[in-house]
């Protein structure tokens, strides 16, 4: 328990929908609807889901870039959501973010040194006389050439900009870095460079990552534990190997089977989900996934399943497993036969 660096309990974020002349609230978009997870120190927690599932909102509320509607989040035992402005500013360096778009996340009017060093000076991370040296060290660590220090963002390519973003986050000596789709805007060969950099830095500096992405293979590669989100809630959470080998929730299974494999000999018989994501303003009753679920049962339309632990830290919210003990055994078998890796062999 104590080695958890971040603990999120029942995080809720609703955006009001306003309408009419007087902008009265007519409903809520349930962007995040009760999400709980924790991250162990030095590990990477991957958060996957499709666009609109609320994964980015989780990241932003944790940084208090948007104010949460409810729930609690503890960073090293301190409650982030109950802090006032000055307390929040004091812990900011511990919690950093890397954004998706390396083009809009750097102020075009600042040279690289200033971009990286601005917050370092503001928070007095290092004494004044060591400042210059410190910035250069950080740049070295992120694979940026030292002479870049006076250059402006417009001279860099996407990959290098993302390195600058990483350097900027790293310079504050954070414990936890929230990486919101850090590689999805980059080319494949550059993605690998950035992923490797993130991993090297983690090993060197004992960093913890919350890695938010829609790319399942990247998440599998980088994460120790993975949470799958659907319409604002976690539907499954498990150690990476366990989740990818034995996915329990039908949504996870569908997601995994939807990923194209770069091998022309593998023709998977995939479970293709019907239909589209329902609107988060008006989520379906009962289990939110029941409208698209291939294994939908009567109970799914009535009652939302609880998020339960099924051993080995494998949590899921699905009625397929929650009914009775003997049922469970069947369904685990079932999940194994549906396993994409086995299908691959066929």
């Amino acid at each position: 328990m104590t080695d958890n660096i971040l603990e999120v309990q029942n995080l809720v974020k609703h955006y009001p929908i306003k309408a009419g002349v007087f902008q009265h609230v007519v409903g809520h978009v349930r962007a995040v609807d009760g999400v709980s997870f924790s991250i162990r120190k030095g590990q990477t927690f991957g958060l996957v889901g499709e666009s609109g599932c609320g994964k980015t909102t989780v990241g932003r509320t944790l940084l208090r870039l948007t104010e949460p509607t409810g729930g609690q989040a503890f960073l090293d035992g301190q409650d982030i959501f109950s802090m006032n402005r000055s307390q929040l500013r004091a812990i900011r360096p511990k919690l950093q973010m890397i954004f998706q778009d390396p083009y809009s996340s750097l102020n075009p009017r600042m040279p690289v040194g200033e971009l990286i060093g601005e917050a370092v000076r503001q928070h007095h991370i290092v004494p004044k006389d060591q400042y210059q040296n410190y910035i250069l060290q950080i740049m070295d660590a992120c694979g940026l050439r030292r002479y870049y220090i006076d250059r402006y963002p417009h001279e860099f390519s996407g990959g290098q900009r993302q390195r600058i973003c990483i350097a900027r986050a790293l310079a504050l000596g954070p414990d936890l870095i929230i990486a919101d789709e850090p590689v999805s805007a980059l080319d494949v060969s550059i993605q690998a460079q950035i992923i490797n950099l993130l991993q090297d830095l983690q090993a060197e500096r004992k960093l913890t990552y919350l890695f938010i992405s829609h790319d399942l293979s990247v998440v599998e590669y980088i994460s120790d534990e993975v949470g799958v989100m659907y319409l604002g809630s976690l539907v499954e959470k498990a150690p990476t190997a366990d989740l990818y080998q034995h996915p329990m929730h039908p949504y996870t299974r569908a997601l995994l089977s939807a990923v194209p494999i770069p091998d022309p000999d593998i023709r998977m018989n995939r479970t293709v989900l019907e239909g589209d994501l329902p609107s988060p303003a008006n989520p379906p009753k009962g289990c939110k996934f029941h409208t698209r679920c291939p294994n939908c049962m009567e109970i799914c339309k009535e009652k939302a399943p609880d998020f339960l632990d099924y051993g080995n830290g494998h949590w899921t919210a699905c009625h397929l497993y929650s009914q009775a003990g003997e049922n469970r055994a069947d369904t685990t078998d079932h999940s194994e036969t549906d396993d994409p890796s086995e299908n691959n062999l066929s």
Partner: protein
Amino acid sequence: MSENTANTKNTKKERLKQIKRFNAKVYRQYTKDKKRKIPVSDYITEMRDADNLLEFDNLQAYFYTDAGTVKAVDGVSFDIPKGKTVGVVGESGCGKSVTSLSVMRLLQGPQGQIAGGQIRYNQESMQRAVDLTKMPMDAMQKIRGKEIAMIFQEPMTSLNPVFTIGDQLSESIKLHFPKMSKQEVKARCIEMMKLVGIARAEGIFDNYPHELSGGMRQRIVIAMALSCDPRLIIADEPTTALDVTIQAQILDLLRELKDKINASIMLITHDLGVVAEMADYVVIMYAGKVVEQGTAKEIFHDPRHPYTIGLLKSRPVLNEDVGRLYSIPGTVPNPIEMPSYCYFKNRCEKCMECCSGEYPATIDVTPTHKVNCWLYAQPSAGSEAGR
């Protein structure tokens, strides 16, 4: 020292002036050519192989910018056989989209122009083969949309928000089949929408694009492309903007359709997974040139070019345990003033002495598998014969 910098500054200015003069000349020529009447005999050619639908032969598409000439596509040659899917793979800026725009003759002139080479199209409807690069625009209009259709990347922006789905679908049908009655056109639209798996076709006919989800819109775009029974469909990153589960739906749809409609597909993407699922042949492009091409099996099981190998290794694969991810070092060279040697030299692990020489020739590994790399050039008999 200061004199030196002044000197370089001057020469730079001189160069910019030269570029400007050169561009002005090129632009003038472009406008003149545009006005010229082109006789039919000018663009009739012979296909190299009658089984091919489209043949790119040393295609060059240049952009004449103020900073210099960008050779976006520089000598690209590959074939699209009838009824097959060809995947064109490469990173951003490698010229894959420009290649497809050249087929449609949609390059933004006068900056973007086809500078050389041929795109031979087997126009079976007229029992002839034509060179699309030389075709006059009015003849091109008849091919565009009817015989060659395009699916764009962004389903959000490729539909006009002020017209209903029905309007937009029937537009190209009306254009290419002017004799059809209103009812027939509508029936055709609904048939097309059913074909792409839209259940409530009648209902959606009168909807506006914003009322549909991304996946639905992409289906509509595909239906539009299919509505005139095209011989070739160019799909430019058709699933990149979509979520994984929707992407799976669309890919399944495209694969299904391929068998039904007997058209060729030119699939442009950066995602090797998508290509592996869809394509029969794969073309790998790097910095405006084709570096390797072959059947999907050859490319994925026996990649030869270091770039292809790197590309395949740098993506983590589901349920496959790799140690450290392989990453290709460095970045793509500056598109202006490309070097004379192999463009990949600076990033290549297997770089040799001779890589600093001229650009490597095309080497046939098998009759279908071609690669441009010095690694496979036979020092004695090979390299010239390989051409």
